[in-house]
């Protein structure tokens, strides 16, 4: 049973078609990866699915709600961790969670126990009352994921969840994502350009290229599709998306990404 469906979902920015008639379907409980080079349309897709950006045409349903006509309902049933730093550094970790617990209508009775459980789950109980600006990059990411899971959303969107993290911090984040899926059956849609991340986390991946799905399937299927022994997902990526050297990015985006990486790193 699918919990997320898009039908010819399209977004244009002037001349540029960032997402071009995207049609995908994600099953309940699946970890679904959107892969692609910078500018392939991954983040734009996520922004539409999280109701931050209206589509130019086409439609999509998340947990049964239309992203345009029932945007407010969509927002109640999703969690979202943006690519950019989204925890507030001037507040303690506990306070970051408290504010979002309130915004997500978690009853006063349940608030404290959920916050403490998620701090413990993310390994942040010791630093709960320290300012987030003193956290490491991996701790910030885990806090952000905790923030987006407080209301136990059936669908969680993660935009490049491990960008700028070292391998240890990355593993810690991956384990928590795994655990969320196992504990709550959360459907997770994530974007990444780390093949290793897609390979170890995702049940299925869609490789996006210039706003379109170039290939879709389980990592094993995709590897098999280009044949040969010892094929890695990297090879698949290059095969489907490798014909452009430099796509997208641009000065503003680069400066933002680097800033995020610096803060997280």
């Amino acid at each position, binding site marked *: 049973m699918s919990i997320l469906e898009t039908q010819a979902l399209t977004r244009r920015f002037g001349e540029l078609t960032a997402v071009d008639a995207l049609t995908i379907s994600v099953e309940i409980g699946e970890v679904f990866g959107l892969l692609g080079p910078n500018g392939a349309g991954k983040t734009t897709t996520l922004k539409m699915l999280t109701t931050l950006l209206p589509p130019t045409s086409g439609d999509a349903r998340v947990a049964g709600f239309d992203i345009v006509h029932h945007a407010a309902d969509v927002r109640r049933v999703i969690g979202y961790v943006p690519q950019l730093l989204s925890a*507030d550094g001037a507040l303690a970790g506990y306070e970051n969670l408290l504010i979002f617990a309130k915004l997500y209508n978690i009853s006063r009775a349940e608030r404290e126990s959920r916050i403490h459980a998620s701090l413990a789950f993310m390994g942040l109980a010791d630093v709960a009352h320290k300012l987030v600006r003193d956290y490491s990059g991996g701790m910030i990411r885990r806090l952000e994921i905790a923030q987006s899971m407080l209301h*136990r959303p059936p669908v969680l969107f993660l935009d490049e969840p491990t960008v700028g993290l070292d391998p240890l911090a990355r593993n810690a984040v991956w384990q928590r994502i795994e655990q969320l899926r196992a504990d709550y059956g959360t459907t997770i849609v994530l974007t990444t350009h780390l093949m290793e991340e897609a390979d170890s986390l995702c049940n299925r991946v869609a490789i996006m290229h210039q706003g379109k799905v170039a290939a879709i399937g389980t990592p094993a299927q995709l590897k098999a599709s280009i044949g040969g022994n010892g094929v890695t997902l990297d090879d698949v990526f290059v095969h489907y998306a490798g014909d452009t050297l430099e796509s997208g990015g641009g000065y503003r985006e680069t400066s933002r990404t680097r800033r995020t990486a610096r803060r997280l790193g």
Partner: protein
Amino acid sequence: MRLRERDAPRAVSVNLALPRPANPVAAVVQFVSKTLVIAELEARKLRHDPTDLITRAVQPALWLLVFGEVFTQTRAIPTGGLPYLDFMAPGILAQSVLFIAIFYGIAIIWERDLGIVHKLLASPTPRTALVLGKALSASVRGVSQMVIIYALAFLLGVQIDWNPLALVGAFATVILGAAFFSTLSLIIAALVKTRERFLGIGQVLTMPLFFASNAIYPVAIMPAWLQVIAHVNPLTYEVDALRTLMLNGGVSAFGLALDFGILLAATALLVIIGGQLYPRVAT
């Protein structure tokens, strides 16, 4: 690295029926409580790091101490019988609140450059509650200025009206004034989107707003064309209300009802416009 066996997605029952406001009353309660949560966020930040409040107090202190003391000597400005320092103290309070509020958009752009705005916009919080919450956040800062300027003015011998009702009135005026100008700032931020352009516009706006108002001289001594501008400038009504409420024997030029009416209506209008424009910040 393999964290687990790749099993087929399990069929899990997912609770989609998360609580949702059922009736208009509940919706209003939610709107108000969400607005206050956004303001609470700001208050918590200030509690962690109040240094900004102190540095912000330097400028109004200089205005009162230097400009105020000098012009008190000249008696060049008709103040309707008030000592000049008394006359200008509410104007400086309004100015201080204006300066804090009008650059509030910078914080919005900053939060946009991070992902905080995106996360707020993807949460089930009404857009207008986000905007009004941000406005009240500026009010929190404005009220802190009120405390400092009241204390300073008192020390300089300004005849302050300590009547609790007058204090509550001044408090409300400061909250409204900060809310109005910070929402104006948020709207500008949503339109221009970059720090550089925003700073330029902020600077171009601030001085005319301040000087085309009754903050440091009465509207009556202005040339006719400037009087017209002063009369459509909400800062004029904010100052008028503060002058009435802050000073012993303060007299309103326009009447408190008109002052509050204009401030309330203008703020409400901007919050509604801001609610429409705020989502643009994330795109």
